[in-house]
């Protein structure tokens, strides 16, 4: 069982990366759309985009840290 634990943690990290990956894609895509439609709001959109990416990314990074702890 001990031999397989490292591999299981890797699989867990991979699963944790799926959702935020999709989420970051949606955030960035919609941000690009918003910037293209309203270039004068680009600065505000960019700040909000980074915020959204940071929140979505946190879940993956928690998975990454748990990979070391597990």
């Amino acid at each position, binding site marked *: 069982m001990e031999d397989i634990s490292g591999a299981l943690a890797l699989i867990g990290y991979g699963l944790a990366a799926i959702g935020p990956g999709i989420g970051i894609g949606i955030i960035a895509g919609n941000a690009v759309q918003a910037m293209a439609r309203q270039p004068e709001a680009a600065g505000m959109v960019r700040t909000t985009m980074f915020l959204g990416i940071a929140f979505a990314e*946190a879940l993956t990074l*928690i998975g990454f840290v748990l990979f070391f702890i597990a």
Partner: protein
Amino acid sequence: MIWAAFECDPATDIICKPEFVNELFETHTIFSIGGFDVNRAILLMFLAAFVAIGLLWFAFRKPAVVPTKFGAAMEAVVGFVRDEIAIGIIGPTGIKYFPYLLSVFLFVLIGNLFEVTPFINFPITSRMAIPLFLSLLTYFIFVGVGIAKNGFHYFSGIAWPKSVPAGLRPLVGLIELVSTFVLRPITLAVRLFANLVAGHVMLTLLLASGVVFISQVGDIGFRSAIGLGWFTVGMAIFVFEIAVAALQAYIFTLLSAVYIQTSVHPEH
């Protein structure tokens, strides 16, 4: 980790891993002062603080109408933190928190950039103590500001939000309580820590594989070609890590500002 890679015999056993994953996070004590063990991370932490102070001091010691190139660059950085983060997020009263945000931004930025500085190659923010301490500072500031501005209403406003229907208030209040007082400091610290650890491990693995494959394998041929490939990928990641270092410093400061903003204007 590079030394561990050199110690294994590439001819027979190319895959060697540390016995214990904590070896990645051990820093050896260099010397001790009165019971305090000083290691590389602590020395680099002081270096980062001195570099940050030195940058600001050299840029702004002689205010001139036409600044030098270096002064103009520093003015751009300081102006960016003041206008985009402090005033842009918190609002006109944000200038009060601007010194804290600028210090955090510069310290985290320099600490992150140590990752790609030749001969240092070690991001101090990849040791949990430093991001955790910075995020606890932000935590105490935003809770303190919330209590100072709103009194007890700060807690009741989070636990019993007026803007949602009455039936949902206990549920939303519980989620908000946990996310504000437990998850915020943890995710703020873990985000910075994990990004830098991931980058550091990735860089070390790729560049060390390149070096080991090229130098340790005797015959020049197929294996050194693989090593050259690893080294090229490592160099590409190197450039990417510079962008990550700057971006994570920006995001850490931005989120600190956002958290303070939610305490200053709790209704928004």
